[in-house]
């Protein structure tokens, strides 16, 4: 664990210059990318508008497959949203040092992912214009949501998670914003000044800040686990064969972390290059991510295996049929993509040469992302199309509207992340400084 220090800046000012230097005025290509993503986003939005005006029929969903890739994307993005909090909160509690350099970016990723994830349930609503009926707002008829519906759990969990993760992110940025303020002039100074809330770094402030941040982390950790458990219960609490399974909560959490870490790799490897942060986000850090992915991959694999075993062992014809059909039925290709990408893919990381090679890291990151997307597809669509009543069996394939909206979501994600890279310190300045300090002492 020593090598991570190699070629890192030695003084506070160096650290600060390196990180804030990344915020130097962006070039034409950057703005090009931003505009492109913006268009993608707008296109997706207009498709949604079209769907609202015409009806859900424009999507490919039908009977029996009432839930299409809207919810696939929902679960996918919630999953992405998990690594952020995992890295910054859990690893913070575990005092795993390699988190520091990537926490900020991971959290940003979390916040954006949750925002997008939060959109999909609405996109998927048949009558989105009255979505607020799911909110327990006071009304004359005293009509309240049903607090035992998994979807209400979902609503509570996601909104809590959005609040907490974004505030956690913002609070973590406070001292850095102050630094930015003090460094810049004119309008920028005023803006950063407002956002830094006039932070000064007095010992009193540091005192409360330190404790509070620890508590934030302590809250974020169980929250992150609960959120994906709740998401998993959207399925596990039903009685659909292939959904109704007790292992879902831990299984989804592991899966979420799996996909989240993969996304971190996918985003950070280009980012560190483009912003010249190699010395801070070094291969050692990425390697630790890779190692963790091996574990999550194994857990996911274990879950696949256990589900099959139990489906067989239970002697429940409906369960077993569903699982057989998953592997050999209409959606077999998706199933095998899922297995290979999620379980076999990360195992490559057992080889040191691979987990220290940027290209490989990046590639496997992508692979796992694809695999995890298909996992959600297989679970959601694959189970619903082959339920209890054979007469009601049917298959589903997404329509152009659904695909466009999915494209829109990815554009939105990149759009936000690009903005983040250039307007907020992509790495936590003061924590890096603290490392310098403690390291200098040790």
């Amino acid at each position, binding site marked *: 664990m020593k090598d991570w220090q190699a070629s890192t800046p030695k003084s506070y000012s160096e650290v600060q210059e390196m990180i804030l230097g990344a915020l130097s005025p962006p070039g034409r290509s950057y703005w090009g990318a931003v505009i492109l993503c913006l268009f993608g986003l707008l296109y997706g939005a207009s498709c949604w508008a079209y769907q609202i005006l015409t009806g859900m029929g424009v999507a490919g969903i039908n009977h029996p497959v009432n839930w299409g890739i809207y919810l696939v994307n929902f679960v996918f993005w919630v999953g992405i949203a998990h690594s952020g909090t995992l890295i910054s909160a859990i690893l913070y509690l575990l005092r795993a040092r390699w988190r520091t350099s990537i926490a900020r970016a991971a959290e940003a990723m979390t916040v954006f992912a949750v925002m997008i994830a939060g959109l999909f349930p609405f996109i998927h609503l*048949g009558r989105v214009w009255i979505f607020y009926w799911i909110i327990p707002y006071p009304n004359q008829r005293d009509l309240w949501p*049903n607090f035992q519906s998994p979807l209400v759990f979902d609503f509570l969990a996601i909104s809590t998670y959005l609040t907490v993760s974004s505030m956690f992110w913002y609070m973590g940025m406070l001292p850095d914003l102050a630094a930015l303020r003090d460094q810049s002039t004119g309008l920028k100074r005023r803006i950063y000044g407002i956002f830094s809330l006039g932070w000064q770094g007095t010992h009193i402030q540091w005192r409360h800040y330190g404790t509070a941040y620890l508590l934030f982390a302590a809250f974020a950790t169980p929250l992150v686990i609960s959120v994906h458990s709740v998401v998993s219960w959207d399925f596990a609490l039903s009685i659909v064969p292939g959904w109704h399974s007790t292992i879902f909560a831990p299984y989804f959490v592991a899966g979420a972390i799996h996909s989240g870490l993969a996304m971190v790799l996918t985003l950070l490897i280009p980012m560190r290059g483009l912003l010249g942060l190699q010395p801070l986000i070094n291969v050692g850090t990425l390697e630790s991510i890779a190692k963790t992915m091996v574990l999550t991959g194994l857990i996911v694999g274990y879950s696949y295996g256990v589900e099959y075993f139990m489906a067989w062992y239970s002697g429940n014809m409906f369960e077993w049929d569903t699982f057989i059909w998953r592997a050999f039925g209409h959606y077999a290709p998706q199933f095998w993509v899922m297995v290979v990408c999620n379980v076999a893919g990360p195992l490559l990381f057992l080889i040191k040469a691979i987990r220290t090679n940027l290209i490989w890291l990046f590639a496997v990151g992508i692979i796992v992302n694809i695999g995890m997307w298909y996992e959600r597809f297989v679970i959601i669509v694959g189970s619903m199309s082959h*339920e209890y009543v054979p007469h*009601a069996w049917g298959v589903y394939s997404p329509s152009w509207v659904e695909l466009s909206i999915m494209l829109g979501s990815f554009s939105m994600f990149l759009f936000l992340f690009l903005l983040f890279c250039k307007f907020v310190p992509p790495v936590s300045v003061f924590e890096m400084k603290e490392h310098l300090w403690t390291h200098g002492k040790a």
Partner: protein
Amino acid sequence: MPSLGRRHFLKLLGLVGSASLTGCSSESPRRLIPYLNPPKDVVPGKASWYATTCMECQAGCGLWARNRDGRVVKLEGNPAHPVNRGALCARGQAGLQGLYDPDRFRGPGEKDGSGVFRALSWEEAFSKAAMELKGLLSRGEGERAVFMTGLLTGSLRDLCIKWVEKLALGGLVMYEPLSYEPLAQAAQKVFGTWAVPHYSMEKADLIISFGADFLSTWISPVEYARRFSEFRTPEEGKRGFFVFFGPRLSQTAANADMWLQVRPGAQRYAALALLKASWKDKEGEKAPWPGSAHLEAFLEKWEEETLLSKAGLKREEFHFVRKLFQRSRRPIVLSSGLETVDPHAHETAWISHVLCSLKKESLELIDVGRGWSVASAAKRSELLSLRDKIESKEISLLLVHGANPVFSFPEFEVLEEAVRKGHLKLIGLSSTEDETTSLSSLILPASNFLEDWADVEPRPGIRGIVQPVMGTVFDTRGLGDVLLELTRRLIPGDPLGHYSFDGFLKERWKSFHEELGIPGGFDSWWAEILRRGGQWVEPSSSKRCEVASVSPPMEWASDEGGQGFELLAYPTVQFLDGRGANRPWLQELPDPMTQITWGSWLEIHPQDAERLGISNEQVVVLKGFGGEAEIPAYVTPLTIPGVLSMPLGQGHTSFGRFAKGCGVNGWKLCSRGANHVSIQPRALKVKFANTDGSLSQHGRGLAQGMDLGEYQEAKSKGQLPKLRLPLPEAYDPKEDFYPPHKHNLYRWAMVVDLDRCIGCGACVIACNAENNVAIVGRELVLQGREMQWIRIERYLEDHPLKVRFLPMLCQHCDAAPCESVCPVYAPHHSAEGLNNQVYNRCIGTRFCSQNCPYKVRRFNWFTFTRPKPLHLQLNPDVTVRQKGVMEKCSFCVQRIVEAKNRIRGERRTLRDGEVIPACAQTCPTEALVFGNLMDPESRVARLSRDPRAYQVLGHLNTKPAVIYLRRLETRREDMAP
């Protein structure tokens, strides 16, 4: 309508017409107010019922029409009517869509050469029509004009005959594509009367059918389905046995205890083999029939072996049947009487009549004297001669009403040519455009039977009254009135003695009144008739019908040596011969056997398909005597090797928007006798809009059967079924996490008797009509988005190939999985155990549908609309759902509410049978029973104690409130002598 008739009418019924002339009030509430003094039986917001008679086919079922705010919104069977006893078939239910057919003629008009329609006033129309006729009459060429109608009975028929005579026209031709002429002819030979006999099946102990689909289309399906289920009901000790000989596992065959596979052309041989084998044990030797000798000689000519091999029957199977026949005391033998099903229908019919005659008691079950009026339809020979006359220009004017020979009688294609050449003029009196009427140059559209007066006489002794149940939807007039008006314009004075047809009708009824010698004045009786829906006397004692002769037919047609496949084209539950094809409800009613909607198909056996390299949904070119057509192949064991089957009734060219572009016209392909065809696969596929996700139930035991013996044993032992009833006591603390919850007074439930369900699909249409269920069209059905609330699941099981029908609707579970997953309580449990779906509250998460193990919930993918005036049919008591909302069967909650309102004030609860959902109400076999499970004496409660009772997916412990009774199966060995 002529004002005078109107006034008569008003006296009797009180302003129904005018009420409806003010239009559809519930469309815009403001319209309700102008009733300064509302007529007595049109109370806004309150329904009034009118008794009338169905004229969708010649069975003449009695109707009750529900009129809300001046428009008919629902048809139901008339419980008092001897033919249908309150039940109704899918086509009858869909009669409304004939009335509100958006493609009906809006009013009189004429067509120029290019076929452009120009509206006329009735005045103009009449004068033009009169001119046409005058032209002929003045030249004394009256016989050059012929009046062609559909099958007419009663007063209307009288009037037409009178009219034709009066004007000395060329004649009246009543064209009925399904005339069952072979049956009448055979009856003529055997019983000495030209009649399509009527059978009292319920009294029989064995039914043998040679291709007669009497449960779906044959003659009077509703009545026969009822009688059949009585024949089957095990309660009366002995359970009847039903053997079906035929080339196709039709819906009727699916309900048989035994299906013997015979090629179409060979059905006569199967019958003959049976006759030869059974002749000697004919009863009543004492009076040897005329022609017996001939017959014996004839039978001598045949070797049983040859017969069996020709018929392709297995000897032991045949002998089993033969023994059954031998043993049975009152067997009934039926035959299709349709050449499209059996090219030798005549011979088969003759043999089956003779077979019946062999048993004394059977002869009591056959009623020739009071046979079906369909026998009076024009004979094939007459039609052909008419055709020749047209070809030879002997006929220059054809008035057509309700007949569509151009579509269903290939020989009549000459019409088009004649019209094109200009030596034939057509005057259309039909109310809707069809292939024949579209040829006419002048159109005087008659009203739909629901807007007009008439009476129907399906069998002697049964006179159903037809009265206007609402004002005319369009500017049309009753046929009778049109004819009378025409006469007035041709012959001065009042030649037929009446200004309006209802007067004519009433006079006729006056005469009945006299000859029946009914006490009391006519008017009171007449009012009574109008209330009851007609007048009928059940035969005091059905007189045994006499055998006239059993001598074999002069010529026994030799097997035509056609190559290739034999083609079989059958009338369908949805369209019969094709008259129902423009009814979206029927188009979207899945075929009972193939579950295909919107289109036609060619059934081919897997063996043949493999041999010819034809895959399912692959288009094949069908070449036959009748021409050539392209049609997608449906590879299925439903039809036997060497035989291709296809439904009739599709492939209309000008019959309205819904019929357009749907399938292929089977009539064109199978001209009688020579029905051999060859097929050519094409490299092209057409998807079937079928609603079934799987052919079989994969051993999941959803639709269950039970052996008759076991059942009777269990019943005698008084065994109770293991059920998880939707009642508090069913909550077992050992396996239920939840406490039981109480219901107040009622716990609504339904029992579905799979032994009675014949899969006809009437319930589906009844539900569509009652609950404003949307029709989505072929494209959406292909995407799996049909909206029907109740469906008949069809599952095939092989070796032996058999079919199970499973009506599936919301099970109103007591612990319904759909409820708790909804975030906004849109579905929740009512105090009476109903699983309510609150449309206004639904935000469309679709989780409920996801979590419903029965998959009976339906989501509104779009806001579905209905072309005007179909929207007039919408039931004002039921919300019309908008896009983004989930919907499903509600157990017709609106009817429950209405019933409760009815008894408000009389301090009591609803009695058993006071509430009946639309599906149960229309079921011809009473397979669906609805009631209150909390009342231990209610029918549902009693039936749920039957050993046959079970719950679909009961193991999920959702405590469904729909309880199924297992289908009974008779083991061969139990029957074996």
